[in-house]
C-alpha cells in the first residue's frame, strides 16, 4: 500500500505543508511508501513533491493505495479527489468565511466562497479528517457523515525554530521593553486591529515602555487600514509590522517577546499558539474557532474584548511572576499532547479506520 497526499501548495513555513510533511515523515519511518503531490510549490516543496498531474497517472491503477487530500482553499486539483480510484480521505484545514475579505481583497473573498461551496462535494469520501474538533463539527454541519469523520491534530513543526536567532532582531527586542507578539498572516479574520487596540490601552494607560510586534505576510489593503489605526492611536514607533520573516527572525521574535496575543475571530487550529507554548510566552487568546480546543485549558482565554481590562491583566502578569509561571507551566504541559509520538498514534488510528472503511477501490 502506498499513501498519496495531494495539496494545493507545498512550501516552507506554512502549516498545511508542515502537516503533510509530518504525515510523510511518520509514514516513511514506518516503512510505508509515501508520495506528495502539489498543484504548485516553492523550492523547498520541490525537494519532496511532484506536480499533481503525476498522481493522475496512478490513480486508477487498481491498487489498495490511499489518497489524503488536503483542503483549505479552492484548488483546481480537487478533480483528482473526485475521480480517484483509491480509498480517499479529506484532510480539512478549514476555510476562512469569505465575508472577512469582502472589503479588502476580492480574489481571496471569491476563492474562500468557492472553496466553501465545493466542500459539500467531498461528503462522499471514505473518511473526513479535520485538524481540530471545531473543524470536524463544521464538516458534519455541512453534510459529512459523523461516523465517517475524525480528528487528526496538527503536529507543530518546532524544530525549524530551534535555529540560531537573528542577532539584530534579538538585540532590538532585548532592550528591556515589554514585548507583545502576534504571528501569522496579517489578514482580516485575524483581527489584528483588536490586538492593536489592546496594545493601545496597555501602552497609553499602563506601560509605555512596551511594543507590539506583528510578524507575518501582509495583505496590503488590510495593512493600509491597520497603519491608519496605528497612526490614529498615536502608536507609531511602538507597533512594528515585520512582514514575512525568516525562521531565524521568527525564533528571535518568540525568544524576545513575553506575551502572545491572539484576537483572531476565526481559527481552524492556530499553530502559533503552540509555538508560543514552546518558547514560554504567556498566551492571551480570544475564545473563537478552535482556539480554546488548541489551548486545552491552559493559557489565558477571554470571551470579551474588554481592552482596558486585558491591559490590566497584562500588568498583573508583569508584576505577578508566580501567576506567569503557573500559566507557562500549564502551557508546556499542554504542548506534550502534540508530541510526535502522539501524532503518530493519531495517524495510525485514522489510517486503520480508513483501511477498514468499505471503500470504492477499483480492481
Amino acid at each position, binding site marked *: 500500500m502506498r499513501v498519496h497526499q495531494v495539496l494545493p501548495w507545498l512550501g516552507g513555513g506554512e502549516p498545511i505543508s508542515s502537516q503533510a510533511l509530518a504525515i510523510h515523515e511518520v509514514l516513511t519511518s514506518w516503512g510505508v511508501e509515501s508520495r506528495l503531490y502539489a498543484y504548485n510549490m516553492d523550492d523547498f516543496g520541490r525537494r519532496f513533491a511532484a506536480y499533481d498531474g503525476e498522481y493522475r497517472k496512478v490513480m486508477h491503477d487498481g491498487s489498495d493505495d490511499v489518497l489524503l487530500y488536503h483542503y483549505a482553499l479552492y484548488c483546481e486539483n480537487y478533480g483528482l479527489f473526485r475521480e480517484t480510484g483509491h480509498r480517499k480521505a479529506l484532510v480539512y484545514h478549514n476555510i476562512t468565511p469569505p465575508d472577512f475579505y469582502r472589503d479588502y481583497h476580492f480574489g481571496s473573498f471569491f476563492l474562500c466562497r468557492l472553496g466553501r461551496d465545493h466542500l459539500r462535494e467531498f461528503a462522499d469520501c471514505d473518511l473526513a479528517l479535520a485538524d481540530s474538533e471545531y473543524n470536524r463539527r463544521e464538516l458534519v454541519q455541512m453534510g459529512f457523515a459523523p461516523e465517517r469523520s475524525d480528528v487528526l491534530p496538527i503536529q507543530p513543526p518546532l524544530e525549524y525554530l530551534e535555529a540560531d536567532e537573528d542577532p539584530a532582531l534579538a538585540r532590538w527586542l532585548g532592550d528591556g521593553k515589554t514585548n507583545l507578539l502576534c504571528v501569522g498572516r496579517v489578514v482580516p479574520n485575524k483581527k489584528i486591529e483588536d490586538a492593536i487596540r489592546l496594545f493601545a490601552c496597555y501602552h497609553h494607560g499602563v506601560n509605555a515602555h512596551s511594543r507590539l510586534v506583528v510578524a507575518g505576510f501582509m495583505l*496590503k489593503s488590510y495593512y493600509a487600514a491597520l497603519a491608519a489605526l496605528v497612526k490614529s492611536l498615536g502608536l507609531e514607533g511602538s507597533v512594528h509590522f515585520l512582514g514575512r520573516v525568516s525562521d531565524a527572525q521568527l525564533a528571535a521574535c518568540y525568544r524576545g517577546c513575553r506575551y502572545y496575543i491572539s484576537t483572531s475571530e476565526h481559527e481552524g487550529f492556530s499553530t502559533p499558539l503552540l509555538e508560543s507554548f514552546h518558547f514560554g510566552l504567556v498566551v492571551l487568546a480570544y475564545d473563537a474557532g478552535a482556539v480554546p480546543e488548541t489551548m486545552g485549558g491552559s493559557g489565558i482565554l477571554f470571551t470579551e474584548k474588554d481592552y482596558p481590562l486585558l491591559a490590566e491583566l497584562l500588568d498583573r502578569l508583569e508584576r505577578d511572576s508566580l501567576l506567569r509561571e503557573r500559566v507557562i507551566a500549564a502551557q508546556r504541559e499542554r504542548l506534550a499532547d502534540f508530541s510526535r509520538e502522539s501524532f503518530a498514534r493519531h495517524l495510525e488510528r485514522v489510517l486503520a479506520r480508513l483501511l477498514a472503511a468499505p471503500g470504492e477501490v477499483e480492481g
Partner: protein
Amino acid sequence: MILVNGRELDEHGLRARVKLRREHLLYTPELLELLDRDLLAVMRESRDQGFASLHGLRRALDEEDEEKDRRREEGSRWRRLVSATRREQEEAEAKSGEPARPPAVLEPPLGAGGEAPPPQPEAKEEKKDEKRPPLRRMIAHVVTMRVVQGVGEGYFQQLKQFNIFATRELEILQRLLRSGNRGPYPGRDRRGGVWLSPRPAWSAEAARYAAGLCGTGAVVVGIPGHALVEALWEKGLLALAVDDHARAVAEAQSRFCPARYHPRPLELLEAARVGGADLLVVPFPECMEGPRLEELLRWAGRNLGAGGRVLLGRGGGEARRFPYEDGFVRFWPAAYLRGLLEREGFAVEEREEAGTALLLGEKGAEG
C-alpha cells in the same frame, strides 16, 4: 469572562484598577472612542488620507491582476467561473443590495457537465480600462513601492537600534578606559558630568518649586521622574505631560499619573489643543534638536498668556556630545536658551532649586 488555565479569574481587582485609570484620565476620551470605531471608518477619517488612497489603489491593483490572470488563463474553466460569479454577484447586489447567491453555473458540480458561462461583455472591459489610465496605474505602482518600503521600515529600525547600541558600547568602553587610568585620553578632564540613561530625576523640592509656579495648568514636555507629574496632578494642575522616553512615561503610569508617550511630543501638543495652561516645563531641553526646541518655545509664546512662565532645566555638561539617544545629549548653552525665550517675549532669570539648575522665563503684560 477571563479563564486562566481553565479557571475563571476574579476580575474585581482588575476592574477597580481600570476604573482608577479612567478617573485619572490615563485613558483619554479620544482613545476610548477609537476602541469601538470600525477599522475602515478610522482609515477613511484619518488625517492622513494616504492610507485610504492606498487601500483603494491596492484593491484596484488586485482587481487588475485578477483581470490579467483571467485573460491569461482564458481556457481555464474555473477562471470562467470567477468571471461569471463576479458578474452575477455585482448584478445581484446592484439590484437588491442583498448578499448574492452562488451562480447557477456552479450547479451541478464542476466536472459533471455544467453549462458554459455567458461570454464577458466587451463594453465593460473597455470601461474598466478607461477607468485606469496609465498615469494612475503608474501612481498606484509608486504607492505600492512605498508600502514595500514601509514594510522594510521594521528592518531599518533594527539597524538603527543596532547602531545606537554599538555607539553606547563604545562610549562605555571609553569611560572604562578613562576611569581605569589606562593611558592618556584627550579631554578626560573636561568630559565629566555627561549623562547616561536614565535621565536624572528632579528632587521633590525642585518638583514642588515648579508646581508652585503654576496657577491654572501646566504642560510638561519631558518627564523628570514621577515627583513633578505627581505634584501637579495632586493639585489638579496637570494639563499634559508628554515624553518620547518610554521608561519615564511608564514610571508615571505605574503611579496612575496621566503621562503620555509620543515619538514627537510637539505634534501631540498641537493635536491635544491644550488650553488655559500658564506654565510650560521643559526639564531636558538638551534632549530636543534645535529646531524642535525653537518650535516648542514658539508654541509657548503663542499659547501662554500674560504672566505665563516657561521653566527650562539646564544640564551641567558641555555641548560636545552626540544626541543619539535619551541620555546622550547635547547641552544647549545658556545664552542660546535665554535668546530663544527672550525672542518669544519672556523675561529670563537663572535659578537653582534643590540642586537643579533652571532657567525661568516669565511673560510680561506686553508679551
